[in-house]
């Protein structure tokens, strides 16, 4: 009876009904998420008093001068961006054949198997996976043991001897960190890419071949441009997740700092909230630039 009168009341009051549905998520997004984000960002325009270590609530660009003026801070930004770019490129290269197989060639059972296979690792705790990788990549770990067994000790040593990215072991080199990053974010590249490839009609590929394009040409001129929205979506995930992560760089890899670690440290142990806020502005600005570039390249035209 009550349900019926409620239904009757809502019927014909579309606006009210919509408002009722949208109010909770909008409140959450508006106040809890956006407002606190802006509160954080606003702090980047404050600075801390060097003697008292307390935040002075006065608008200043001092923190930003500190961010871009310190070579060490610039290094951190560059290191993070380079890693994010490398991880994104590698994820795209690895994900493409997998997504292509899932979208175009796999039968229904195989496809389901692949989707589960791609998503299954996400059911495991992120921390467990990172620490597991540290063991896998360790000097006495299974990867180096297997490579030695296969007689590939030499190539591994040469790889680790490469300056900057190498190190005493995979677990304590940027190469190892790169491997873990790619492993972690690969599903986020595969899924949107497979979705984009699935939307490319088979007849377009046939039309391309029909008009004389060899498979390589069809890939470059038809498949790749049409998969661009998926690549863009996937790369936004891999790029931004790498930019913001602070756990992987602190568990695996060389001791150099990353943006996420700086944010964590500055707002935690160092208590320099303005600098932490300024550091967290960096990924936001980078992603904005990246999106603008992707848009100019026409990545969203087909949406």
């Amino acid at each position: 009876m009550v349900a019926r009168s409620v239904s009757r009341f809502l019927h014909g009051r579309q606006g009210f009904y919509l408002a009722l549905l949208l109010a909770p998520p909008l409140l959450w997004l508006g106040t809890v998420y956006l407002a606190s984000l802006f509160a954080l960002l606003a702090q980047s325009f404050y600075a801390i008093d060097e003697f008292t270590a307390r935040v002075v609530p006065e608008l200043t660009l001092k923190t930003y001068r500190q961010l871009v003026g310190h070579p060490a801070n610039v290094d951190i930004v560059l290191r993070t961006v380079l890693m994010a770019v490398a991880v994104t490129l590698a994820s795209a290269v690895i994900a493409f054949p997998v997504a292509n197989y899932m979208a175009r060639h796999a039968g229904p059972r195989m496809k389901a198997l692949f989707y589960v296979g791609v998503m299954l690792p996400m059911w495991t705790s992120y921390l467990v996976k990172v620490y597991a990788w540290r063991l896998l990549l360790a000097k006495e770990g299974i990867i180096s043991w297997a490579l030695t067994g296969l007689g590939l000790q030499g190539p591994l040593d040469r790889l680790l001897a490469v300056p900057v990215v190498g190190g005493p072991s995979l677990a304590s080199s940027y190469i190892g960190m790169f491997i873990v990053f790619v492993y972690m974010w690969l599903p986020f590249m595969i899924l949107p890419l497979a979705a984009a490839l699935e939307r490319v009609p088979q007849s377009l590929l046939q039309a391309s071949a029909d008009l004389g394009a060899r498979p390589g040409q069809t890939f470059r001129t038809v498949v790749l441009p049409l998969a661009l929205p998926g690549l863009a979506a996937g790369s936004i995930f891999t790029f931004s997740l790498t930019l913001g992560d602070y756990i992987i760089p602190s568990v695996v890899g060389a001791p150099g700092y990353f943006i996420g670690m700086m944010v964590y440290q500055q707002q935690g142990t160092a208590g320099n909230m303005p600098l932490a806020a300024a550091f967290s502005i960096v990924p936001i600005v980078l992603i904005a630039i990246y999106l603008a570039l992707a848009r100019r390249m026409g990545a969203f035209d087909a949406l």
Partner: protein
Amino acid sequence: MTDQRKRDASPAIELREASRAFGPVVALDRISLTISPGEFFALLGPSGSGKTTCLRLIAGFDHPDSGQVLLDGVDVTDIPPFERNVNTVFQDYALFPHMNVADNVAYGLRVRGVAAAERRKRALEMLDLVQLESFADRRSTQLSGGQKQRVALARALINQPKVLLLDEPLGALDLKLREEMQTELKSLQQRLGITFVFVTHDQGEALSMANRVAVFNAGRIEQLDTPRALYTRPKTAFVAGFVGSANVVESDLAERLTGRRQAFAIRPELIRIVTNGAPPADHVVTEGVLENILYHGASSRCHVRTGDGAVLAVAQAESGDAAALPAPGTRVRISWPRASAVPLE
């Protein structure tokens, strides 16, 4: 020299005993087919009859399990589509959504490495041929169905193929546009003089456009003939019923009506309702109850149930006289010229 002469004399397309099965489903069952250069050829049949598979074998999107495909006398059975001198207009047009109209049309030249300026020039010429030159810089997604169809046509013709394949080319267009395009395709084919092969499930389209029609049923060709021969001399009950409408009279009833135990087909428009006087001597006459009348404008379709329980359709041309037809429920006599009944296999 002999080589050249042999090529000139060889058919544009030839299928030899081509078979194709998808799992347990036999899509094509030992099809042999010869299409001469310059023919406008239709593959006609209901869905699942194998006509599209046949087209795909010629285009190279699919390969026969056994048998051969020859183009211009050359065995291309294992040659991929991008090495065949055949182009296709797809059912869904398959225009590249990320390119404008001119780039779509020029695609065949682009993949052959033709310079951009030359490509553009020739694409505009092709668009001129299909009266769409002012649309060159539109995106393909902004076109109407009929315009897409023309762009697909221009794109398929730019490589100057010897054979143009059309997969249900007019299926997605509305009736008026379809009739327009039929005329246009036919005149285009005559002007270019290349071989057109098109797939359709619409018998009217096949009859009006093609020089010859292959009627497909369950993976086999039921009959391959000119449109007129298909209509006037169908060989099987399937062809009689699929091409135009026909009354198929089974052998038992045929024996009672004509005295000969031979199934035959008779077109509804050849049967007359005898209202007064005796029918001519060379007519077959029978009686039945006029069950209902469907008015179609140019003609009315009457269903007459004979004493044997068979229902015969009779098409009566509109004469302008409302009293020309008896009322439903009355007994009528119907007749048709003995010679116009087509014996069936």
